[in-house]
């Protein structure tokens, strides 16, 4: 019975928990990908509809203009400019930076100016958020699921911090070299 309990706590639960976490993350990714595809289809359809409406309005205007003497402005052609003028600040702060692969900076990183300060803020905020999240999961796992032997919590806190302490400077150095390399090759 003891070996069955050992098997459950040391093999089945970690495998099950790891599998569920990985699959949940992947499922979230798949949902997001599917949602993006639906959004893109809707946007394309809306764009087609707008183009059709504009074309119809243009042809109607062309027919009406000779009769009225003055052409009427097409309403849909003026709206985007007005909308752009309404939100200049967010356009600057939320802008996708070149070379970012389409990713936008996070809420914290957006408070910093573009370049190295924003990059560092982004990296530190992600590292801190991930570290805190892992610690929360570890503590819930330890006190709620299985009391794993071997100073589990101490190892999680110090081990995670050690990994971050080793990898972040290396990542920063690699990024600096990559940027220097890219600037030189221009």
């Amino acid at each position, binding site marked *: 019975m003891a070996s069955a309990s050992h*098997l459950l706590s*040391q*093999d*089945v639960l970690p*495998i099950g928990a790891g*599998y569920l*976490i*990985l699959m949940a*993350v*992947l499922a*979230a*990714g*798949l949902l*997001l*990908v599917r949602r*993006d595809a639906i959004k893109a289809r809707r946007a394309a359809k809306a764009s087609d509809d707008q183009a059709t409406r504009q074309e119809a309005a243009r042809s109607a205007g062309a027919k009406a203009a000779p009769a009225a003497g003055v052409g009427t402005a097409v309403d849909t052609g003026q709206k985007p400019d007005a909308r752009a003028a309404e939100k200049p600040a967010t356009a600057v702060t939320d802008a996708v930076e070149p070379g970012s*692969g*389409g*990713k*936008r900076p*996070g*809420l914290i990183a957006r408070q910093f100016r573009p370049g190295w300060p924003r990059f560092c803020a982004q990296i530190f*905020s*992600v*590292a801190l*958020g*991930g*570290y*805190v*999240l*892992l610690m929360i*999961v570890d503590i819930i796992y330890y006190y709620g699921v299985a009391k794993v032997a*071997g100073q589990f919590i101490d*190892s*999680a806190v110090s*081990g*995670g911090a*050690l*990994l*971050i302490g080793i*990898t972040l400077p290396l990542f920063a150095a690699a990024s600096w070299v990559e940027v220097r390399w890219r600037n030189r090759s221009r």
Partner: protein
Amino acid sequence: MGDHPVIGYVIWAVLIGAVFAWEGLALSHISGTVPTLSDAFRAINRYPAGRWALFALWLWLGWHIFIRGWHFLLRG
């Protein structure tokens, strides 16, 4: 195989194999609708909570592989 039963390793092998099979299916474009792991991770990376979750997973993996049960070389 250490202290663990073989079935545990078999399950891990099947799960990891399933991930590779998924990626192969997505890259082969046979179905046309299966996104690759890169697509999924890219979508997750757009959101702060997703980035935290992925970083936490990466940290968890590194902690298990390199830190837990690791002993310094030549330590008694």
